[in-house]
């Protein structure tokens, strides 16, 4: 089911079946161009498949935006080892809730995407690593997998190709860190979910020491349509080097929060004002967190004329990330937002490396004290310095994910912190409802 009314401005490509009755059933999928792409792909060479993906300019939807075709091309195909197709469905970035809909409403699309990846590198095994808290989705995905086995889309000799592929679901145990691809692999292998040293990257040494394609749920879900309609068609939906559409997850102070499928490069202000029905209660926009909570905050001014694609946001030293936008109105207490954000990262730091483990906790304690009215002038600088002592120095990106937004809040809204010191001595302010998760 969907949780919000669709918008007329949406371009429904990967969410096209979301509103169909029985959208999760294989019959619905087959009746709506399902498993057409894998038939096409089975007639293509790996090189041709990868080339088509490159033409589509599909970029990883997990957050980093790495070109998918290039990622697949890195997998050595003659290593003599088994290979694996892993789906990262450990969607945990605050503000992001799209993978959930893809699994909940169209699991066969995901399966087909993984099948195409599997065929590309002649892998025989795939895992969908589903976030522990998404337990209810496992039933849906498992049912879809069973249907696919029944109809011969999974298992042995798929569609007479002589190629076998098995697919399994696997659950995380509630750690944000396991969304980091190498920590996910550790967890999948039954170990503690801490990140691995890179290089080697998963493409070469991934699951069970073997070459692995590891992509986000939305990335795999975008693959079938590319092979149905062509890479060039997909690329044409977006902006140059940012092909296709994207599920945007909008939360915060807008009238119609929800998940909307929009082409890459869709303007931020149209998203807020037209797709989401404008700011709630007619308030003014103060800031937007544009790509999940780890993306540095954008001021209202920065949001003007901003196309939502990977490159435009990178230019503003923020990121498109996971497509989770949090819209904040003029009444928002930025100190509280910063505190809520760092609380999340302090709670989720795996503890492997010193700067992330100690830095997030220190920042959490400092911001808690600051927020409760115990702040000092020096704290404001210290917050920035601690974040910069973490930034780029941690083992994996979690430390950066904690440092970047903190730096963003303190540099772009420093005056709010200073005001806070003057106004709020002794005041204890609960975090605003929307982020008080």
């Amino acid at each position, binding site marked *: 089911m969907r949780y919000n009314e669709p918008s007329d401005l949406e371009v429904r490509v990967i969410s096209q079946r979301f509103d169909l009755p029985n959208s999760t059933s294989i019959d619905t999928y087959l009746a709506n161009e399902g498993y057409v792409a894998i038939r096409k792909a089975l007639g293509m060479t790996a090189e041709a498949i990868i080339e088509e993906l490159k033409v589509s300019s599909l970029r990883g939807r997990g957050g980093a935006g790495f070109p998918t075709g290039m990622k697949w091309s890195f997998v050595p195909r003659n290593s003599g080892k088994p290979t694996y197709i892993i789906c990262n469905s450990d969607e945990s970035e605050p503000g992001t809730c799209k993978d959930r809909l893809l699994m909940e409403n169209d699991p066969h699309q995901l399966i087909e995407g993984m099948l195409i990846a599997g065929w590309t590198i002649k892998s025989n095994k795939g895992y969908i690593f589903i976030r522990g808290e998404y337990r209810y989705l496992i039933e849906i995905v498992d049912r879809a997998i069973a249907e696919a086995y029944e109809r011969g889309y999974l298992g042995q000799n798929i569609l007479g190709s002589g190629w076998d592929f098995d697919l399994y679901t696997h659950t995380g145990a509630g750690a944000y860190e396991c969304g980091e691809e190498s920590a996910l692999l550790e967890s999948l292998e039954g170990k*503690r979910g801490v990140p691995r040293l890179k290089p080697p990257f998963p493409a070469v040494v991934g699951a069970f020491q073997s070459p692995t394609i590891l992509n986000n749920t939305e990335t795999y879900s975008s693959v079938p349509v590319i092979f149905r309609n062509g890479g060039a068609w997909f690329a044409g939906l977006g902006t140059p080097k940012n092909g296709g559409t994207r599920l945007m997850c909008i939360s915060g102070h807008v009238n119609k929060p929800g998940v909307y499928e929009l082409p890459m490069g869709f303007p931020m202000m149209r998203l807020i004002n037209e797709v989401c029905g404008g700011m709630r209660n007619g308030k003014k926009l103060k800031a937007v967190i544009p790509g999940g909570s780890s993306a540095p905050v954008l001021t209202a001014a920065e949001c003007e004329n901003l196309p939502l694609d990977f490159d435009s946001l990178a230019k503003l030293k923020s990121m498109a990330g996971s497509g989770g936008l949090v819209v904040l109105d003029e009444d928002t207490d930025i100190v509280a937002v910063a505190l809520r954000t760092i609380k999340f990262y302090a*709670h*989720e*730091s795996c*503890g*492997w*490396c010193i700067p992330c*483990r100690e830095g997030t906790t220190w920042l959490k304690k400092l911001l808690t004290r600051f927020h409760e009215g115990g702040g000092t002038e020096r704290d404001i600088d210290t917050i920035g310095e601690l974040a910069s002592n973490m930034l*780029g120095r941690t083992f994996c990106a979690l430390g950066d994910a904690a440092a970047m937004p903190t730096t963003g809040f303190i540099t772009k809204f420093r005056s709010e912190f200073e005001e806070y010191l003057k106004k709020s001595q002794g005041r204890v302010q609960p975090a605003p409802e929307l982020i008080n998760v």
Partner: protein
Amino acid sequence: MADPVKFTIDGRPMQAAPGTLLINAAKEAGIAIPSFCYYDGLALQAACRMCLVEVEKTPKLQVACTTPVAEGMVVQTDSPQVRQARKGMLEFLLTNHPLDCPVCDKGGECELQDMVFRYGAGESRYVESKLHVDEKQWSPIVFYDAPRCILCYRCVRICGEGLGVGALGIGNRGAAAEIVPNRGDHLECDECGACIDICPVGALTSGTYRYKTRPWEMEHIGTICTHCSNGCKTTLGVRNGNIIRANNRDRSGVNGEFLCVKGRYAFDFNENPERLTAPLLRAGGEFKPVSWAIALATVAKKLSELKARHGKFGVIGSNRTTNEENYQLQKFARLVMGTSNIDHHRTGDFATLLDTLSGRANALATTADVYTTKAALVIHSDLAQEHPLLAFQLRANSRHHKAHVYAVTPGPVREDNYGTGVRADPGREFEVLATLREKLAAETELIFLFGAAIKGAAIRQLVEFGDSLGIPVKYICLLDYSNSRGASDMGLLPDLLPGYRHVSEIGLDPGMDCDQMLSDPNLEALWVVGSNPLARQSLGATNAFLVVSDLFLTETARRADVVFPAMSAYEKNGTVTNVCGDVQKLSRGPKTMGTKSDLDIVALLAREMRADLGPTKVDDVFQEIRRTVRGYENLPFGVIETGGAAATAPVHGPVRFESRPELIRPTANGLFTSGTLGRFSGMLNGLIESPGALYRDPHVRPVIEFGSGQLEMVQDK
């Protein structure tokens, strides 16, 4: 080998082999890059982020511990940015650290203290509350104080990768992450204490040492462990003549990183209140303490009188006394008493191996070979229990060099976990070996490590098998106790002189062996030095005059007429030869008033008997050994003197002797026993008795077949 890579560190042009890690390349050049988690030989972690350096054309600082050098790389290890990063990292580390240095065992030798002193900030900005977790005790010897822990994971790695035990893991996450035993609240492990030694801070502390002293109050003396035959170097921390701790501070021994529970904790026998501190003389059925002068005079008088009338006299020597003591002891028997009735508790059939190997070059493996060989095969020994250093070396070899390890043993052994383990009932080892022939012949070299069950004809059969493989093969005859090999090399054998020369060379007939001496009803006097044969056998000559030199009133000493209180190996200087023939030096640490070294006892007794035994000083005796003992010729004195190991070369022509496999008595000591001596270590006994603390390993044999009294000890308690 590939061409070296050229790069620059701190403006200095350098080169190194491709793949060399930046941190090691810098170290080679004398540039220290600080780190906590990087540890040579253990898996890379990149967790502490202390080794961040600036690499030109790379926007972010790079971790030197996982970055290999690259052609043209330009590295700065001391730029303002790097200094600032280190300062920031240490500031983070100290946020939840209790800063209880004044009461911390590690204070004064703590890597965190040193790092903060050198690279840290003078002032702390941290004003928030600290996390506190109560200290936990995981075993009688391992305590963990989580707040002090910096999570470098060295302990987890040394236990898992190094020992193959894997008793430690990581629990919780984020700032609450801590080291946890994998068995919940306690350790089920070898209790080796490697985790404590390797801890850079005071997070892991030892039950035997904690809160006893400040490190700088001790004198640190590197000597050789007196327990098993592997000859690990252990550093004794001695304060006011007492051993306060033993650890692996000095990593220059054959053991490198390694020490087992005995090397680290079983030193406490030295201060056992039951230590003998005065000579005892039997008078009217009771012992009475007497002066050394009286004791020596009594024995000298008895032996002189016996010698004059050619009465039957014998000597049973020790597996733990030094080479110099053994050498002088056999001289005493042969030259002063004119008899070759001398033997020791033979824990393996080394002489037969030597004889079988005659004429083969490089046929005996050194301790270092075990770490470098391409393949090794263990026959009939639970190495991890009986020869923990060799087990560690083999495992490290497999980890670092992918050596192939085979184990042909009656029961499961730890080598099974990473090598090829095959079960063979005792006596059927060769049937199993035959099935491995093809695999073994495909190796490029091989070391056979064989236990005491392979003796006599079986050794000849083994060497024949080795010869038939067509590859270079080396052998290690596994013995027990710290100087078993030295006892054999120094001629504590009835038919062999030092260097395995026949006694007829000095005009003597072969003498009586251990069993013959103990059973001969006509034996008139017996001198037992550091051995306890009466724990397992009785003395046939019920009226024989028995002299015993020992640390304790053992079963044998209780029967004695005169008892000399001897020094322990930790109290004297000298050399010992380990199971692989590596000679290393003992250094005097603690003192026990009233005791003398066996070297001095032999010398004083000879003097009392107006006999000349030549040199009396340790170094002089050693020089004589170097001059006269085959295999010890020209041992590099400087290497040994400075704490190194020098390999002996005892293989020459055939050995003229009577092979007596029935005299081989395996000791069946495991990690927590050490013959008679082990009974006097409260720490070892405590570990055996502590429920859950002793490694409940199916490999530990429940029945002690031979041994020297452990069985009674267990029943006593």
